[in-house]
């Protein structure tokens, strides 16, 4: 279908983009990969007055080492994230979650920043970002601020990004050598998650010394499964441990009900999948 009329600008620097955003006022919208925004426009669920395309700012696509962190530009496409060697080496969980997003076409267009800014509770990247304590670099007219993942996701489709602000970069601490896995359950092979579990474990001599677990689509935002994390730490990684720890996964969640899965079924899935994800991660 055809979107309602809008103005289009394609700035070549982030500063220009912020200015355009401020000038555009309330109705201005950022365009990243367009994989979520364009359908919204075409279904006429949104009618922005101006669309600001970040596609003309090459620096936003960069993936680089930044001291003890991996810094990923907001406009890095899913495809580039999952293929990147730094990501594979230091943030493998993010790469694994990204591989499960949709199909190759969508992954070539959609971006890490766009997905996180869109904040669909069924999206796959929020749980990984949350589990890994990513930092969100946000630029506004007053300069840059950094928001920790725990404060970034605030509600369905809502984040800490302010009205005239742009997410420019997502920074991940290095988890070199961690055992990771993203376990996704969906209705068809390339669909969104009904439930998914992001697991990163530090295993020393067979014992789990640190655990980071994020949940997809178990509430209005990605959720950190702290109960499971605590139950795993200090334990030998094995079947019974995983199963017992998985029982904690529903703590603090508010699983939604929809046509694919009612809340009770989601909760059940979360338990089964957590057990599997832990075991797969440790290998």
């Amino acid at each position: 279908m055809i979107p309602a009329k809008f103005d289009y600008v394609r700035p070549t620097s982030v500063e220009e983009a912020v200015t355009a955003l401020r000038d555009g006022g309330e109705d201005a919208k950022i365009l990243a990969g367009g994989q979520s925004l364009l359908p919204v426009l075409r279904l006429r669920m949104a009618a922005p007055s101006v669309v600001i395309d970040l596609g003309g700012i090459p620096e936003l696509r960069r993936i680089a080492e930044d001291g003890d962190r991996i810094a990923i530009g907001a406009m890095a496409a899913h495809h580039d994230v999952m293929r990147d060697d730094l990501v594979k080496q230091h943030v493998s969980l993010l790469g694994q979650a990204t591989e499960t997003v949709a199909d190759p076409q969508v992954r070539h267009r959609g971006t890490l920043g766009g997905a996180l800014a869109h904040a669909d509770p069924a999206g796959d990247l929020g749980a990984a970002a949350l589990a890994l304590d990513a930092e969100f670099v946000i630029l506004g007219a007053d300069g840059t601020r950094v928001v920790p993942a725990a404060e970034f996701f605030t509600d369905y489709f809502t984040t800490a990004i302010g009205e005239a602000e742009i997410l420019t970069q997502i920074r991940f601490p290095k988890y070199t050598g961690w055992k990771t896995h993203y376990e996704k359950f969906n209705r068809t092979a390339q669909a969104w998650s009904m439930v998914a579990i992001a697991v990163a474990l530090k295993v020393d001599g067979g014992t789990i010394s640190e655990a980071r677990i994020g949940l997809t689509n178990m509430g209005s935002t990605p959720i950190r499964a702290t109960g499971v994390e605590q139950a795993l730490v200090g334990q030998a990684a094995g079947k019974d441990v995983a199963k017992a720890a998985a029982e904690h996964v529903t703590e603090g969640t508010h699983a939604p009900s929809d046509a694919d899965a009612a809340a009770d079924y989601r909760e059940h899935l979360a338990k089964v999948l957590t057990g599997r994800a832990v075991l797969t991660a440790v290998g």
Partner: protein
Amino acid sequence: MTTTAEPTTTEIGKSRVRKEDARLIAGRSRYTDSITPPGTLHIAVVRTTLARATITSIDKSEAEKSPGVHGVYTAADLGAEAVGMPCAWPVTPDQKAPQRPVLGIGRVSFSGEGVAVVVARSMAEAKDAAELVEVDYDPQDAILDMEAASKDGADLVHPDLGTNVSATWQFDSKAMGTGDSVDDAIKEAESDPDSIVVRRRFRQQRLIPAFMEPRSCVVDPTGEQITIWSATQVPHILRTMTTVTLGIPESKLRVIAPDVGGGFGGKIGVLPEEMLCVLLAQKLGKPVKWTETRSESMLTAHHGRDQIQDLTITAKKDGTITGLDVHLLADMGSYLGLVGPGVPILGAFMFNAIYKIPALKFTCSNVFTNKTLTDAYRGAGRPEATFGIERMMDELAVELGRDPMELREQNWISHEEFPFTTVAGLTYDTGNYEQATARAMELFDYAGLRREQEERKRSGDPVQLGIGISTFTEMCGLAPSRVLGSLDYGAGGWEAASIRMLATGKVEVITGASAHGQGHETAFSQIVADQLGVPFEDVEILHGDTQVSPKGLDTYGSRSLVVGGIAIVNAAEKVVAKAKKIAAHLLEASEDDLEFANGTFTVKGTDKGKAIQEIAFATFMAHDYPEDMEPSLDSDAVFDPENFSYPHGTHLAAMEVDTDTGRVTLRNYVCVDDIGNVINPLIVEGQVHGGLAQGIAQALFEEANYDEQGTLVNATFVDYTIPSAADLPSFTTESMSTAATSNKLGVKGVGEAGTIASTPAIVNGVLDAIRHLGVTEIEMPTTSQRVWRALQVAKGGNPMETPSDTHSPGAGLGSIDPNNPKGEVL
């Protein structure tokens, strides 16, 4: 005198890559939406989101002021209040048929129905203005449950009809003299300790045909004939029906179906939007174009299936079936489609399938509800019947403690018994169920999988294995015109063909079949190349334009090859007969002394000869030809078959069920189909693969869900889950052939086989995997949630039904409730 020797078959049987594909894949195709005559105006239909309401007012004023708008019209503004869309299949003399208006008049009967139309300079302007039309409604509770709707005293979808039951159609083998009485069979079985009665209820969920190219129509009124381009399967029927509907003389209409991107039955209708384009083009004197959006398509293009099946089968305890009683409720939606009422009725003849069932009764009531209308969808009536009987065979096997394949074999028609006249009155010409089954079981490793299944059961493996069987047949090649007449169908079932021999020896073949993705151009070229002995490359297939192909009944019901293909053969034979006369004249020989092979007429016992392409040139020059004939080789033929054709096959599915999550995985699928002689094995394989995907999708993935207000909640591809290649295994498909005797090529038709056969194979397999855990039935689609819940119930757990109509707060845009786009939990 026979006019031809056996044609040399160098092309038939060859796996030629489809010649139309390069064009389609490279984007050189021309779909209706790519056609925009100069000065075209675009329309957007204003649609209601309510399923049942009276219209209290329509305010067009804002829309009329919107930039680029030419006008905004209701049915009354167009003088079209009396126009009703045609239904060509009155299944009973007293069938109740409401007027199906081009735009709702005074009321709306399903969510998505048009109430006004905006005409503007561009599509975008039309869409903008459509949002400004203010319609006030007085909403009423939607009537959605066909069972409740069919009861006396129910609220009425169309009060003037006095009932929601459009028609009740019955077939009783006793009354028809084709078999015994089912009522007697049931009575006897009930009182006989050596017999058994099995009753089951199955639901055929509602499906959306989901063709790739959305529907589109362009009407240009500026010529002597009004030209209609439409993304339709049925250009010829569209022309006739436009005359029937609007009264425009047929001779003043030219209909063109350019490249059409899929249909699956979904483009068999004649649309209100097509008629709106004609009316507006005539009124405004300018070309008018309509192209739907995907969601518009899912909401308003006709849906398929949607039946409740109550089945009773009776059998001796030794496994011999004695009777089958079929009671159907079929949801028509809010109006009757072009052939919608007849779709469930087609199933009447297929419930007995490949089995020797002595008594059959079939009763079907067609019911109105406030939903999108239903009509043909790949298989049309036959998948429903095949599902019913193949599920019942498994249920009977369970009740009797028998192997389901062995029970089938005990009851099926053995290959020595053909031709076999069934309890439904059809005569199956050929088939060999034993051979197809034996081959399929071998390819599948039936015995090995049964062992693995036992092993998994014994060890309590969380992943259980089930084997699903479907031994199907179908009647295809719609159809013998007289049979259609006896079913009160509003048309015949013949097909037409013409062959034109061009001066340079090239061949133009005109067919009344209207391809929309099947590969006709390739398969028909192969047939003609063999018949005439000319190179494949020299044959051009022309179709889909009533100026080029004035006569035809189009493409549906697996009829193009078995009816249209035979018309082409007949036309080719006439060409050869004419050419032979001229060849004899030029070679100064008697016709009897000529033989025709590889495209050349030779005088027997000599090396004197002439190629048919040379004769074409000589005929064009016309300097020297026999006195008693016209200088032309061109020939026409119309073929009306005397019988349907009856492909059959054995389909086997290995289903894994993860009992921890409910996830169902199709591990392996084998089918061996007898589709008669094969023209192009590659095209056959493609048809089978696509058909399987669609049938499997019904079993596992697809369902059109309505909420309590009657809103279709999954009107995008995010929510209406059609599978992709990533969801399906690599199929093992083989074909075997017992040639059909009902046509010269011995072909049977393959377009629907995969869809018809596969659905019950999958569901039988899912149940076979977990029946020992206490699960006896799972409604389609057998999603992980439904399977998991069935397992919980079997364990005595929470029987809570999951609502199927709730909007997801997340999971993509399609799930976003239009009334609550942010997904706020209210």
